């Protein structure tokens, strides 16, 4: 499948994957994250069930301290 991840086109072997699988493949191991699929917020307890499929627009925002 081909998705847009943080405004960049990415291709994966699988047809679908969960948010957790994506975070693992991309080694996004940060604790504080905000994930949206096609503009919809995915809550933390949905990371193992929320599914990403072909043509989805995914945003992963890594939150770092400072301000």
């Amino acid at each position: 499948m081909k998705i847009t991840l943080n405004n960049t086109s990415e291709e994966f072997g699988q047809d679908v994957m969960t948010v957790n699988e994506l975070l693992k493949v991309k080694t996004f191991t940060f604790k504080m994250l905000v994930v949206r699929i096609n503009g919809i917020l995915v809550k933390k307890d949905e990371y193992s069930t929320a599914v990403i499929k072909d043509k989805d627009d995914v945003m992963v925002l890594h939150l770092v301290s400072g301000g």
Partner: protein
Amino acid sequence: MTFGEIKVKLKTRTVGIAGCGGLGSNCAVALARVGIGTLILTDFDVVSESNLNRQYYFLSQVGEPKAPALKRVIHQINPSVSVIAYEIKLDPEHILRYFKDCDVIVEAFDEAGQKEMLIETVLSAFPEKPLVVGVGMAGWGMNDCIHYRHAGNLHICGDEVTEISENVPPLAPRVGMVANMQANVVLEILLKS
């Protein structure tokens, strides 16, 4: 658009700023200078001397609660801005109560966990409301790493990677850059509509 026309447009607009530290104080002052109508400020902390390396306060204000202290700073620059200052540690319930009528919300917290809480709350409760967040601005130099991107109504300013630590402190130039980028995004949103 002339500055006069800009001021007329901004006069009726309300911006909520979550946190009055390095990002919030500088962003609020920039918006006050250009004539924003109303600012809703929240912060639970007091001004300390160590804040003065980046936050828009003065030595004479050390010890004062930040939200009302920032209100006084703003009124010395532009007394026509209506400022509502809350001395509170924002939780999801406060966000829903205090920010529901804002045209734009600015995330200006220090701590990553608080940033996450605010973003999740706003995106769930007010999916249509523009939210401008600041992520990654510690240290110095690296001008070319600071950027802006947006996904729908979520607007992100910062380098998205630099975390504060003892050897990478937040300092006026980079924090001010991101705070002013946030203010600039707010203007773009408000002047478009």
